[in-house]
């Protein structure tokens, strides 16, 4: 079974580039050049140098002792929260800004949900001196205020997306409209493994550093590089794809993707895409999305802005359909409790997105010596408001 992209830009039945003609030249330019650009020795050198000296990689793989004790397994946390800017998102923006430079682009646009991708994009734009415009849903601007301030301080223009559900989906629409209207000098840094081919493959490639490091670190810390379980939360699916990437072809390793159930999968307020969705096209690729019978996209809900998205990347749709990975969900409440638990057992405040992955531990059964790796995709600083309100701190 091929779990990776084929020469037509598909992962099994999913992927492709369902875009209007106005976007075709830009996407085609990227498609024909990205592999060559990324494979170039100079690119690789610069990319890895920046990941090391600027982002602070490799991120630690931390055996969480007290958490392990509680659940009766060896639980390793891949500490993407310790990256510069506080989440895995920067792995991708470093890669894409280097691609954009090599394509001769002068202006960068991005969409953001939690603001982590927006901050990571604004950061690399400051680093390289490029103009930056970030689209963010009106509701997310309210619930992620610290990140909005960071983007502004970094010199980015933050544009409020006021259509639809006023969250990530609508910010993505606005970014695509911007790209249509600026067809020559602009590169769109998509923040997850979504969008038209080649984005899902390109973003996964940049995020794959997560599992590349994890395998090496597991060999140093355990007897082999084959954990029993690998867990990650899924919004669009980039931290999960990075975390899964080098384990995908090792079928002994069980992959678990955790989606946001919001107030419950059947509550009408959920973002559990694979549970509630059907095959269709969203934001340029064929995948699984939450939609009505008429093909209208359903507005998702999650307390976590980064998981509040009605689709998943096409590679996830493929892993789901082929049963290579298991897709599950946890509710707002379960995630917040897991966030508090990690904070009090390990002294790590996780992003609410990442707390979704942690919450699934409650539902797993262990015999005592399984090795479990969880992607701790980001830190919780941006979520303090939500935590404080929820726990009455």
């Amino acid at each position, binding site marked *: 079974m091929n779990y990776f992209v084929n020469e037509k830009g598909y992962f099994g039945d999913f992927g492709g580039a*369902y875009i209007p003609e106005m976007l075709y030249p830009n996407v085609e330019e990227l498609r024909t050049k990205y592999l060559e650009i990324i494979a170039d020795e100079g690119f690789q050198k610069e990319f890895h140098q920046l990941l090391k000296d600027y982002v602070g990689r490799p991120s630690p793989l931390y055996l969480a002792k007290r958490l392990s004790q509680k659940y009766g397994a060896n639980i390793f946390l891949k500490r993407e929260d310790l990256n510069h800017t506080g989440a895995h998102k920067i792995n991708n923006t470093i890669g894409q800004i280097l691609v954009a430079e090599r394509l001769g682009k002068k202006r960068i646009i991005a969409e953001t949900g939690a603001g982590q991708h927006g901050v990571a994009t604004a950061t690399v734009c400051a680093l390289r001196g490029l103009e930056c415009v970030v689209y963010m849903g009106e509701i997310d601007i309210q619930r992620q205020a610290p990140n909005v301030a960071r983007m502004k301080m970094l010199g980015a223009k933050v544009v409020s997306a006021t259509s639809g559900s006023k969250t990530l989906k609508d910010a993505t*629409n606005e970014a695509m409209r911007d790209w249509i*209207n600026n067809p020559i000098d602009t590169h769109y840094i998509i923040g997850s493994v979504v969008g038209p081919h080649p984005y899902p493959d390109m973003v996964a490639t940049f995020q794959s550093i997560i599992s590349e490091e994890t395998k090496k670190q597991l060999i140093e810390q355990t007897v082999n590089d084959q954990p029993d379980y690998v867990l990650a939360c899924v919004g669009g699916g980039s931290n999960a794809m990075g975390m899964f990437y080098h384990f995908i072809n090792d079928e002994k390793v069980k992959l678990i993707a955790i989606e946001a159930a919001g107030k419950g999968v059947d509550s009408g307020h959920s973002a559990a895409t694979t549970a509630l969705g059907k095959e269709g096209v969203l934001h340029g690729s064929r995948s699984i999305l939450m939609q009505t019978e008429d093909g209208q996209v359903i507005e998702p809900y999650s307390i976590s802005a980064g998981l509040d998205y009605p689709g998943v990347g096409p590679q996830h749709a493929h892993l789901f359909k082929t049963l290579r990975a298991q897709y599950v969900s946890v509710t707002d409440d379960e995630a917040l409790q897991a966030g508090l638990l990690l904070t009090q057992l390990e002294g790590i405040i996780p992003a609410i997105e990442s707390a979704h992955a942690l919450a699934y531990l409650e539902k797993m059964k262990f015999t005592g010596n399984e090795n479990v790796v969880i992607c701790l995709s980001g830190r919780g600083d941006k979520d303090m408001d939500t935590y404080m309100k929820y726990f009455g701190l």
Partner: protein
Amino acid sequence: MNRINKLFQEKKNILSIYYTAGYPNLGDTVAIAEELERSGADLLEIGFPYSDPVADGPVIQASSKAALDAGMTLKLLFEQLKDLRKTVSIPVLLMGYVNPLLQYGVANFCKSCAEVGVDGCIVPDLPMAEYEELYANDFKQYDLTNIFLVTPQTAPERIQKIDSLSNGFIYLLSSSATTGQNLQVSEGTEAYFSRIAALKLKNPTMIGFGISSKETFDKACQYANGAIIGSAFVKNLKSDDVSGSVKDFMKTFKP
């Protein structure tokens, strides 16, 4: 011969009007078509609304949302169009995004179009390769036209390929833009239109996106077989006087 080919054989300076099905009132779809034909429109593009119209500007975003909120669906649209051909004789295209089409089923969609007398469609986010490989046969079977878009950035070889797959007209975008902006004919635009003319395409061309006045319409007609008006028309529709607002708008084009 289908209605579209016949139109282009017989007429020049073709005026095509886009509007969103179910807007301003859910039941207006056919009444607007009738009024447009009476007022001199040559061709109609009826938009079936989508929740995430990435190629559209604010006006068509708003009309789409209003139509969806009122309950418009593809299924309902085909019901509304059931007796279209009793009162409307000019060619009609449906325009919309690919996801509603996929959920309806492409073959099923083509069949419904043929049943109600729709002549073809424009689906900007249906890629050429997927169309050719998966759906072109369905379109052929029901003698439907699929209209492709070309922008100033579309490469000449791709335009040739689009020409070979087309059998109605080619939709030239005045610039790479979302709908609803004003056409500015700069030297660059003129060069682009001349470039297209020099390719000697087998299909006629229509210019769309940004045509908002008689003046821009006339300018577009210098370079193509006609032009398409969308946002400017939709913006003018009044929910309490639909036929009056259609008539008023059309007067400026066909006095």
